[in-house]
């Protein structure tokens, strides 16, 4: 569904992405991990068209993303920190995004109901806590039933119950054959969600492997210890 070919990006003299090649298929749930500043957020932003790559190409459903912005119909994005206009209410934000998307397909209101946002529709964004803001971001990213989900630190800032609801939703959508890309620093919570791991460092992909293969080759039961072992052996 997403093909990334030789993507390079520099910010000034700093090389952020140094020729990235990736092929991501539907039904996969991919964890994009790596130390701070390794380029994972930049890679996501390039896929979303927020950052322009210096060279290389990206195909989403076999169409180049530079041609038109319509490919974003298939993508739901949840930012790390969602911030919205201060004086708008939750209801207005949801209404506005619905208007922008303007889709005829039925909406996926499962998270909307689970987080009970209907009781908060008149609340202004400026009065919301960080966690509630994250709930709004999560609801918006799943609302239009997109076939690709890009989640940047999805559970950071959510309370344990809300985080668990989101995790269950992610697992369910993975079962529905969607492509899900997650970045996270919390390796422990990735265990039951992800099927593949991409480890990035200094703008390069160090490895891209299925979780089962990774655990087998390192003889460990958890993702975190498997990755530690790989890094130690280097």
């Amino acid at each position, binding site marked *: 569904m997403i093909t990334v070919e030789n993507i390079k990006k520099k910010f000034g003299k700093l090389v952020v992405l140094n020729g990235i090649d990736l092929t991501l298929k539907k039904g996969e749930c991919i964890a994009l991990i790596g130390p701070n500043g390794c380029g994972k957020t930049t890679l996501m932003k390039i896929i979303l*068209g927020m*950052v322009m790559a210096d060279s290389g190409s990206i195909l989403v459903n076999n169409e180049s993303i530079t041609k038109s912005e*319509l490919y*974003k119909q298939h*993508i739901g994005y949840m930012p790390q920190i969602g*911030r919205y*206009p201060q004086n*708008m209410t939750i209801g207005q934000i949801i209404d*506005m995004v619905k208007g922008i*998307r303007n889709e005829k397909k039925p909406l996926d209101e499962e998270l909307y109901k689970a987080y009970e946002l209907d009781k908060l529709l008149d609340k202004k964004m400026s009065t919301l806590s960080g966690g509630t803001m994250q709930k709004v971001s999560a609801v918006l990213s799943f609302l239009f039933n997109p076939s690709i989900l890009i989640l940047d630190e999805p559970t950071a800032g959510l309370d344990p119950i809300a985080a668990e609801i989101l995790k269950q939703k992610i697992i369910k959508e993975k079962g529905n054959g969607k492509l899900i890309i997650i970045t996270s620093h919390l390796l422990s919570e990735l265990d039951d969600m992800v099927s593949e791991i991409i480890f990035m460092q200094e703008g390069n992909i160090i490895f891209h492997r299925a979780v089962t293969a990774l655990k087998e080759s390192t003889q460990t039961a958890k993702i975190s210890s498997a990755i530690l072992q790989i890094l130690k052996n280097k």
Partner: protein
Amino acid sequence: MGRIFKYVMLDILKNKFVIAYMVMMSLVAWSAFTLEDNSAKGMLTLLNLILLTVPLVSVLFSAIYIYNSSEFIELLVSHPIKRSKIWLSLYWGLCGSLVTAFIIGAGIPLLLFAEFTISLLMLVVGILITVIFVSLALLSTIIYRDKAKGIGLTILIWIYFALLFDGLLLFLMFQFADYPIEKPMVLMTALSPLDLSRILLLLQLDSTAIMGYTGAIFRNFFGNTVGMSISFTLLILWSTIPFLVSLKKFKKKDL
């Protein structure tokens, strides 16, 4: 696009700063007309308000608003909508709400107390100045990613146009007093939207004495009607060109 514009405009109109701006404008305008015995004096007070406060508020508020909306802009970009539409909606939203505040604040007393044609002209000039400085603010936010630098640049823009430019012209005038510099001077005036607006209004108000040096030349050179249409054209160029440059850069910008 209409939807983003609508919500951006509603969001700004509910902003306390914009409400305060509106109240302040109407307080000054009402007192200018009710305290002075003739409306011409009130017009001059209002003219100074328009030439100093309106650009400052427009340029600063717009720049701060755009910087504070950076995450919101990112969110919009992640949806299937053209970047140019997002930027246009923000531009129209800022212009629409600040112009509304200006019309409610200064426009009502103007139309009530002053002669209709002149007050209409003043309103139009005020609206143009608002739009011009919104578009200059958008350009500054594109030039600098850093909020402090960008807002510094907008303040610099305001100081330059509102305070320094006329002094600079006067200085040049004295330095080159021995040469026939009327024509270059008129050309120089086109470089400042605030000077253009001042001349435009004073040509109508008939207050030649306070027209400033550039104004006097301008009047001699063009006469009323031609001078007016040229300065209007220039003002409209001032309001579109910085915005178009910022639009072009926004399409390629890394968010």
